[in-house]
C-alpha cells in the first residue's frame, strides 16, 4: 500500500510521466480503471521528467545541443530586481537559483542554495545555513554577505528597483560566512514560498555594485545557465554553466545542465512563432493560441504541454459599491447565470479548465469546497433576481422604473473579449442587460479603481494564497487590485492573520475559510484557470516547472 501511495505521489508531482506510472502501477497490482482514473484526475497534462539512469545521463551530456525557444515577449531589462515582466522571469529562473525550491503539486520545500533553515518561535527571524561550494557565473563567491547585499540593494531607493521588499522586512544580518538571518518586524508567513518562487534571488554583490549596465544585460547568477548575450527585441543567448553542482534533489541528478545552449528568440507575433515551429526554425514555442492547439496536437512530430498556473484564475470582479452589483442577490444571480463550459470548450477549445474559486487549483491552500458553489443554473439565477425585486419585462428586468443594466469594462488585448461576449449573451437569457466596452492598460487600472464599472476582468500570477490579499482585502480598493471594491471585515481579518500565522496547516486553514466567505458574498465570478502553454518537437523532454509556472530547463533534452 505504501509503495502504491509513493508511486501516486511521484506521478502527481510530475517526476514520472503517465506511461511510466501506468507501467509501474500495473506491476504493483493497481487495476486498470483505478490507474485510468488517477491519470485523468491529475490536474496537469505536463510531460514530466523521468529520472534518467546514470548511463543515460552520460550519453545525454555528450549530446547537448542548442535549444531554440520562441518566446512571446521581450524582456524589459535582465536585472532580476528591476524587471516587471514574467517574460524576463522565465529566462532568469534558469539563471538564478532560489535559496530553497518548491514545485507545483508538491508540498515539500527542497534545499537549494540554503542547505537548511529555521524559523524562530515568534516567526520574526529566518536563519539560513548556506551551501559553501557555490559560485556566481562571474566567479564571485556565494555567501551570507551576498544575501545581505541583495536585500540592501533593494532597500536603497537610489537603485530604482521595481521588486518590493517582503512585507514587514526589517534587515538581513550576517551571522558568519555561510549563515544569514532575515529579520522581520512583523511575521510574514508567505516568505519561504515566495523565496522558492524566485522572488528576491541572490545577486553577486560586487558585480551588482560596479556594473549597473551589465546587470541589465548579462547578470551573473548561480543557476545552470549563464547569460552570454542579450540583444533587446531579438534574443537572449544562454550557455551551460559547467561548474553547476547544486541542483535540488527533486531533479534526480547532479552536475551541469544537459543542454549546451539555449537560444531564447523573441518572436512577438503568434502566427510567426507557430510558423517557426512548423518550419523547424525553433524547437519549442510558448503562448500558443487555441486554434494552433488543434493543428499542433494533430501533428505527429509535435507535442503540446499545458501546465496549470498558481495564483488567482481568470475572474470577473463584480463591483460591490455600484448598482446593480451592489446587491448580493444580483451578484449571486450573475454567478449562476454563467455557463463556463461554453468559454472553456468552445472559445478555448478545451485548452483550459473552468475555475470555481478565487484561487487557482494548484495554489497551496486551495479549498475544493468552492467547487460546489454557483453551478450553472439559469433557473436559480432567475429566482434570485425575482427575489431581489427585479421584475421580468420581456427580455429585460425592471425595478422602480429602472432597467437591470450593468457595465463591463473589458481590458483590451487581454484575451477576454470573446468570453465577455458569451457572458453578455448568458446574462441576457436571465434578463440582465450587459453593456461591453474596452479600455487599454494601464489607463483601465485607474478606471477600475475609480469604480466606473460593474464588471472588471482580472487574474493574478502568484505562488502563495496571500495573493488573495491583493485582490480581496479592503485596503486594496482604489489603489490596488481589489477591483470588486469588496469589503468584508471577516475576510480582511483572515487575510491579515494569514500573513502572520506560523503554523502552515493553520495558515492554509485561514485561507480556506476566506475562500468560502468570498464565495458566499460573490464579489467575483471565477471563469477559467490560467495555463502556461508550450508546443515543441515531440522528442523534447525533461521540462520542470517552478511555482510561478516558469519552465525550468535543467533536465531538458532535445532527444534528437
Amino acid at each position, binding site marked *: 500500500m505504501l509503495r502504491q501511495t509513493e508511486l501516486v505521489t511521484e506521478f502527481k508531482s510530475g517526476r514520472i510521466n503517465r506511461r511510466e506510472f501506468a507501467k509501474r502501477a500495473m506491476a504493483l497490482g493497481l487495476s486498470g480503471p483505478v490507474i485510468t482514473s488517477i491519470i485523468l484526475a491529475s490536474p496537469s497534462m505536463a510531460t514530466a521528467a523521468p529520472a534518467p539512469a546514470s548511463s543515460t545521463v552520460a550519453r545525454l551530456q555528450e549530446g547537448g545541443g542548442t535549444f531554440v525557444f520562441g518566446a512571446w515577449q521581450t524582456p524589459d531589462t535582465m536585472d532580476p530586481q528591476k524587471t*516587471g515582466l514574467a517574460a524576463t522571469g522565465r529566462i532568469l529562473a534558469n539563471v538564478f537559483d532560489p535559496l530553497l525550491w518548491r514545485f507545483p503539486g508538491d508540498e515539500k520545500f527542497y534545499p537549494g542554495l540554503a542547505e537548511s533553515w529555521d524559523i524562530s518561535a515568534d516567526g520574526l527571524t529566518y536563519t539560513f545555513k548556506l551551501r559553501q561550494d557555490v559560485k556566481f557565473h562571474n566567479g564571485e563567491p556565494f555567501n551570507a554577505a551576498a544575501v545581505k547585499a541583495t536585500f540592501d540593494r533593494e532597500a536603497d531607493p537610489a537603485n530604482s528597483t521595481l521588486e518590493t521588499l517582503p512585507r514587514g522586512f526589517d534587515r538581513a544580518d550576517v551571522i558568519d560566512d555561510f549563515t544569514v538571518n532575515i529579520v522581520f518586524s512583523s511575521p510574514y508567513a508567505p516568505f519561504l514560498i515566495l523565496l522558492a518562487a524566485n522572488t528576491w534571488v541572490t545577486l553577486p554583490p560586487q558585480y551588482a555594485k560596479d556594473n549597473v549596465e551589465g546587470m541589465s544585460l548579462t547578470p551573473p547568477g548561480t543557476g545552470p545557465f549563464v547569460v552570454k548575450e542579450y540583444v533587446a527585441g531579438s534574443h537572449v543567448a544562454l550557455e551551460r554553466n559547467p561548474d553547476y553542482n547544486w541542483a535540488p534533489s527533486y531533479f534526480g541528478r547532479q552536475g551541469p545542465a544537459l543542454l549546451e545552449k539555449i537560444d531564447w528568440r523573441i518572436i512577438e507575433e503568434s502566427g510567426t512563432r507557430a510558423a517557426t515551429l512548423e*518550419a523547424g526554425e525553433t524547437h519549442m514555442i510558448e503562448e500558443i493560441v487555441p486554434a494552433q492547439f488543434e493543428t499542433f496536437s494533430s501533428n505527429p512530430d509535435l507535442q503540446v504541454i499545458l501546465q496549470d498556473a498558481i495564483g488567482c484564475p481568470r475572474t470577473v470582479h463584480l463591483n460591490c459599491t455600484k448598482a446593480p452589483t451592489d446587491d448580493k442577490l444580483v451578484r449571486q444571480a450573475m454567478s449562476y447565470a454563467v455557463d463556463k463550459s461554453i468559454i472553456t470548450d468552445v472559445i478555448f477549445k478545451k485548452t483550459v479548465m473552468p475555475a470555481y474559486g478565487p484561487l487557482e487549483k494548484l495554489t497551496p491552500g486551495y479549498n475544493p469546497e468552492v467547487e460546489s458553489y454557483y453551478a450553472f443554473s439559469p433557473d436559480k439565477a432567475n429566482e434570485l433576481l425575482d427575489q431581489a425585486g427585479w421584475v421580468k419585462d420581456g427580455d429585460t428586468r425592471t425595478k422602480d422604473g429602472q432597467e437591470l443594466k450593468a457595465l463591463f469594462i473589458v481590458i483590451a488585448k487581454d484575451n477576454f473579449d470573446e468570453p465577455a461576449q458569451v457572458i453578455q449573451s448568458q446574462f441576457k437569457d436571465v434578463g440582465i442587460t450587459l453593456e461591453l466596452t474596452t479600455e487599454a*492598460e494601464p489607463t483601465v487600472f485607474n478606471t477600475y479603481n475609480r469604480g466606473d464599472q460593474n464588471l472588471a476582468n482580472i487574474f493574478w500570477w502568484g505562488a502563495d494564497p496571500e495573493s488573495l490579499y491583493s485582490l480581496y482585502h479592503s485596503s486594496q480598493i482604489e489603489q490596488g487590485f481589489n477591483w470588486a471594491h469588496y469589503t468584508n471585515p471577516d475576510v480582511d481579518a483572515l487575510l491579515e492573520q494569514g500573513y502572520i500565522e506560523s503554523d502552515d496547516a493553520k495558515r492554509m486553514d485561514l485561507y480556506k475559510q476566506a475562500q468560502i466567505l468570498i464565495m458566499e458574498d460573490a464579489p467575483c465570478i471565477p471563469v477559467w484557470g490560467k495555463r502556461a502553454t508550450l508546443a515543441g518537437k515531440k522528442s523534447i523532454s525533461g521540462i520542470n516547472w517552478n511555482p510561478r509556472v516558469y519552465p525550468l530547463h535543467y533536465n531538458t533534452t532535445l532527444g534528437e
Partner: protein
Amino acid sequence: MTEYFIKRLILAVPVLFGVSVAVFLMMHLIPGDPALAMLRGQPTVTPADIDRVRHQMGLDDPLPIQYLKYIGRVFQGDFGESVKAHRPVLTMIQEQAWPTIQLALAAMVLAVAIGVTLGTISALRQNTWVDTLSMVLALFGVSMPSFWLGLILIYVFSVRLEWLPITGQGGWKRLIMPAVALGLDFSAVTARLVRASLLEVLRQDYILAARAKGLRGRTVVTRHALRNALISVVTIIGLQFGFLLSGAVVIETVFARQGIGRLAITAILAKDFPLVQGIVLVSAVVYVAINLLVDLSYSFLDPRIHYR
C-alpha cells in the same frame, strides 16, 4: 541654392519643436498611472511603492518643468534613459537603427523598381490587356494589408516550400520577404503615378519632336520622357517614407526582425516615456532630412527649377 537650403533647415526647427511638444503632451495627458502598471507583477504593492516608482520616473514635477528639463538635455545630446531598460535612449536607438534602414531601403528600391517598370509598361501599352492587368495587380498590392501579406509569404515560402528563413536579420534571404511585404503597396502607388505622369509627358510636343528627329523609341522614353515623369515619383518617395517607417513597425513584428519599429511598439506598450519620445524625435529628424533631400534633388531632375 545654398540660401534655400539654409532657409529650409531653419524652417525644420519649429517642425521638430512642434513634434516634441506634441509627443510629450500626448504621453502625459493620457489617463493612467504607469507606476501601477509597472508594479503589477509584485506580491504586495503599497502606496509607498507607487510613490517611489513615480518619483523614479520623474513624474512628480509639473508638466512644463518636465518638458523643459527634457528639452535641455536633448540639446546636450542626452535623450534620457529608458525607464524599463535603464540604458541611454540614444544608444538603444542606434543599436536598432541599421536593420530598419536596411529594410526601408530594400523595400523602397524594390517598390520603385517594380512600380516604375509596371507603370512604364502600362503607359506604353495604354488600354491594352497589359495595361489593365498591371493596374489590377497594382490594386491588389494597395489593398493587401502588409501584415497579412507577410504571414502568407511566411506560410508559402518558409513553412511549405522551406526556401527562406523566417525570423531575424542579416543576409539577403532574410530581407526579401519583409521587403516585399513592406514595399508592395508603395510599388502599387508608384506604378499608378508613373503611368499617369508618363502618359502626360508622352503627349508633350518635345516628345513628338524627339521622335521626328529619328530617336529610337527606347531612348525617347528613358532619356526624355521618364526623366520628367520621375519628378512626381521622387516627391512621392519623400512623402511615402513616413508610411514606410510606420509599416516597418508591423513588418518587423511579423518577421521578428530587430529595428526601430519593434522598439517603438515595446516602448509604447510599456509606457516608457523617454524611449518613445526619443524614437519619435529621431524619426521626425530623419523624415525632415529625407524630404529636404527630395527638394534638393529637383534641380538635378529639372534644371528649370531655380531656388530663390
